[in-house]
């Protein structure tokens, strides 16, 4: 479960580092640990993608 969401975390980690991952968790309220427990639903993926877009604007 949550493989795609976890993948988003890895992408953000590569792009923005640890701070980026923490901010992503802050914005989505889903940590990479939690990502393993939740499904890769369309809603969850959209939440992640919107947060990453927000990160790209601010970082």
């Amino acid at each position, binding site marked *: 479960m949550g493989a795609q969401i976890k993948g988003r*975390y890895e992408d953000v980690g590569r792009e923005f580092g640890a701070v980026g991952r*923490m*901010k992503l*968790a*802050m914005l*989505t*309220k889903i940590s990479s640990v939690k990502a393993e427990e939740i499904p890769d639903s369309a809603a969850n993926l959209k939440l992640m993608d919107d947060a990453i877009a927000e990160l790209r604007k601010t970082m």
Partner: protein
Amino acid sequence: MKISTKLIGLSVGCVVIVGGLAVTLVGELRTLSNGYNNLLEVEVRQAEAARVAQVDFKKQVQEWKDILLRGHNPDDLAKYTQQFHEQEAKVKAEAQALSGSVEEPATRQLLLDFLAADDTLSKKYEAAYSAYVNGKFDFKAADKMVRGQDRPPTDLFDKVVAQLTQLVEKRVAAQEAEAIRQRNTALFVAGALLLLVSLLGFVVVKGVLMRLGRLKAVSDRLAKADVEGLSIDISGNDEVGEFGQSLQGVAAAIEELLAIAAH
């Protein structure tokens, strides 16, 4: 609903309730005041007028006695005759005015009976006066003609005064009962509204305090970075709910930081 909106709503509710209560009380007081004014302007005034007429009637009888006692002197005869007729006219006018204003049928009938009895008495006084003046001021003979004749009108007017006084007492008692009823109603309504506002305030404050307590427990765990199995279940669209959502973000960030550190 936001806490601020709830508190403003509660305050506005209190103001509206207090305002409404004040307006209602002013209205009730006005009704009560009008009742007392009406009582003073009608029943009390009538009872007072009846007492005045009662005294004037007794003065008229007294003037007649003055005529008999002192009428042998021409000056006194003229003086007391004039005073007697003045009192007589005054009593008639007062009784007629009263019979026109009194609405209570039994009392009005007593007044009409008094006027009729007074007319009869006036004729008897007139005859006795002629006999007195033409009979060389024989007061005994004149007195014999009218002796005890003032008793029936006196009794009738005493009854009028008693009935009007009783009517005033009844109206005062009714007004007092109405005042007590209105006071009790106002106290009951004010008490009920106060209880309602207190209950609403208690529910709002208790709800907020309970949720703030849960937030504090979450915040205490976050302060210790104890996020494992941490559940932040603070729902609602108010400020507390928004704070809970922010704490969810903080918890996720701490969890992510711990995960990064662990790798």
